[in-house]
C-alpha cells in the first residue's frame, strides 16, 4: 500500500527532526491542503519544506512572520515566477505555527 499524504509528511517531518507538536502541525497543513503543492523533501508544485527550511535557516526568527504572512496572502518571486495561492482560511496564529514548523523552530 502506498503511504498516504499524512504518512509521507510525518515521514518527512521525522527527517526534519521535529518533535511531538509536528504531528499536529502536519495535520493542520494537511487540512489546509498545503500538501497538494508541497512535500517534505521533494519538489512539488511548490518548493519542498526541507528546501524552504534550508534557504531561510540562517534567519529563522525574522523569516517566521514573513512566511506566515506569505502563507495567508500568497505571493511569489523567491523560488520562481509562480505565485503561491493565498490561504485566507488559515488564521494568523495557524499561519505562524505552520511557518515555524516548516522552519523547524
Amino acid at each position, binding site marked *: 500500500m502506498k503511504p498516504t499524504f*499524512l504518512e509521507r509528511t510525518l515521514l518527512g517531518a521525522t527527517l526534519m527532526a521535529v518533535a511531538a507538536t509536528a504531528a499536529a502541525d502536519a495535520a493542520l497543513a494537511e487540512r489546509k491542503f498545503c500538501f*497538494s503543492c508541497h512535500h517534505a523533501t521533494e519538489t512539488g*508544485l511548490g518548493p519542498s519544506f526541507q528546501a524552504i527550511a534550508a534557504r531561510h535557516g540562517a534567519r529563522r526568527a525574522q523569516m517566521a512572520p514573513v512566511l506566515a504572512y506569505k502563507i495567508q496572502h*500568497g505571493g511569489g518571486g523567491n523560488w520562481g515566477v509562480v505565485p503561491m*495561492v493565498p490561504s485566507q*482560511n488559515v488564521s494568523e496564529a495557524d499561519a505562524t505555527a505552520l511557518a515555524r514548523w516548516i522552519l523547524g523552530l
Partner: protein
Amino acid sequence: MIERHIGGSFVARGLYLLLSLQFGFAHGAHADFTVTGSVVDGNGNPIAQAQVVYQPPPGSAGASAITVFADAQGEFAFPQAFSGTPGASLPLVSRALGYEYRTQARSGSNQSRPQVTLLMDRVVNQAAVAPASAWLRQRIPERQQQSQFVMDCIDCHQVPAPEVRDYAAAIADMHAPDPAVARTQSWQMIVQYMNRLSAWEFSRGSRKADTPPQPDAVYSVNNEDAVAARLADRFGDRLEAIEGYAWGAPLAVTPQTAIYEYAVPEPNAVREAVLLGGRALWVADVATNRMYEIDIASGRQKIHEAPVDVPIGPHSLHRAADGGLWVTPLFNNVLSRINPASGEWRTWMVRDERGRGAGIHDLSFGHDHELLTDASGRIWFSDIGNNGVGYLDPKTGRTELFAAPPVPGRENEPAMLYGLIMNKARNQIWYSQLGIGAIGGFDIDRQQFFEPIALPDPNSGPRRITIDDADVMYVALYGGGQLLEFDLNTRRIIGAHDLPDTASAPYTATWDPVRKVVWIGTANGDVIYRFDPKTKGFQVLPLPRTRAFLRMIDIDRATGVLVTSYANIVELVQGPRMAVIIDPGDNVYPQRFAPNGETRQ
C-alpha cells in the same frame, strides 16, 4: 442487499443536536418595525428594479439576509416587520448593475416605520456586481471553447470568481522577465492544484474519512496543458474592470418579489435544499455527513447526523408523496430516506443479485418535482458509477442494474449518467449524460433502452432534467449555456434555446406545474432564468450576491416559492453556502409564503 433500519431513539434523539439560536419572537417586550423607501441615483432619478438587501444583525431570528426589488418609481417595501428598534443607520444596501451603493438617509420620522432613501452612483466598472459569467463570456466568446471551459473548470466555484481574478493579478504582479512564461507556469500550477482538490472532493463518498486520495489522482481536467494555455491566453491581464454587461432579458421581478437567504454552519459542503411544511428548510451537507433542518421563522437549526457506519454524503434531495425525504449519496450505493417528522433514517445498500453496487446520483422526478416511482412502486435511480440506470424495490430490497448503451463516437470519455425523470405513464425514465453530451431513455416494461441521442457539442453538458405534465422534458445544458426542450412522445428535440447568458453554466431545470414555466438555476451567472415554453422567451431573476453557485431548485407546492442553495464546494473555497427561498412575488399560487412560517391564503 442489506436493509438497515436506524432506530428513531438512536438517531432522532441520541445524535440529535440543537444549535439554539432562539431570539426575538419568544419575548413579548419588543418593538417591530417595517422598512420602506426608495433607491435613487445622484440626480434623484429612480433606479427601477434595484435590489435592496436587509441584513439583520447576527443572531437575529429568521433569514440571514432579505432582498426585495424597487418598483418603476424606485420605491421598495419589505414584506415583513423586523423585530427590535431600528438604529440610526439600517443594515441596508442596494445593488444594481452599473451602480454602486453610496449612502442612506432616513426620510420619515416615525420610529416604527423608517423610510429610507438609498443613494447609488452610476459606475462604468461593473466588477462589484457582475457575475463571473460576464467575464467568461467576454474572454472566451467562441461557443465550443466556452462550453469546454465551463465543463473543465466550473464544478466547485465560479470562474473567474473574485479570487480567480486576484490570482491573475498576482501573476501580473510578478513582473517576470518573460510574463508569458509566468502566466503559463502559474496557470499550470493552478490547474494541477484544482485537479488535486477535485480528487479529494469527489472521492468523499467512496473513501473512509481522513484517508486522502492518491495525490496524483486526476479527476476533472485531463487536458491540463490546454486548459492552462487557454487561461494564460484569455486571463492574462489583471482582470480588474468589466463594462457593458447586461442581464440579457427582462427581469422576472415585481415589487413583491422577496429573496430569503439562510446561512448554514461552516465548514460545510452544502448541496441541496427543500422546504417542508412551509417552515422547515432541509439542507444536505456532503462534507459533514449531515442534514440541517432550519426553522425559517426562528432561524433555529437542528442537525440530523446521517447514520455513521456508512459513508453517505447527503447529496440530492427528493420529496416523496408520502412526506418522506429521499437522500442520494455522493455517488456510492447507500440510498436513504429520512422521515422529517421523526428524524428517523432508513438506509439501503443498493446491490444487484450479483453483488454489484450502484453509484447513485439522482432518483426519478415526476412533473411536480417529486419522486415518482413506477407502477410497482420501484424507485429508479441514475447510476453514475456504472453509466446505467437501476431500481430499488423498497418493499423487497431487490435491485437490478442496466448498463446504458454506448453513444457512437463518444465511447472514450466518462459518460457520467446524471439527471433522471419519469414520464407520466410511469413506464419510461430518461437520463442525461453530463460527460459526453448525450441523453437517453429506458422503457421500464420492456427493460430496453431507446437509441441514445448525442447532442452536437460533446461539451454541451446535459445536467439536471425536468419534465412537464405533457411529457416534454427540459435539460439544462451546463457547458452549452442552453435549455434543451425534448418531446418524449415523438422522441425529438423541440429546440435548444440559448440562455440570455451562455456562460452562466445552467446547473438545473425545474418545471413549475402551476406557473407552467421552467426555472433554470445557474452556477456561474448569479441568476435564475424563467423560460416560458409558449413564447420560448426568457426572464431573469438576479440573485442578491456574487459567487451564488446554484444547484437544484425545488418548488414549494403550496406557495410556489423556489427553494435552492448556494453550494460552493471544498470547504476552503470562498463564497456563500446558504439555503435560499425565493418568492417570485407573482401571486400565482393559491397560498402566499410568509417568512414567519405562517402561510397565508
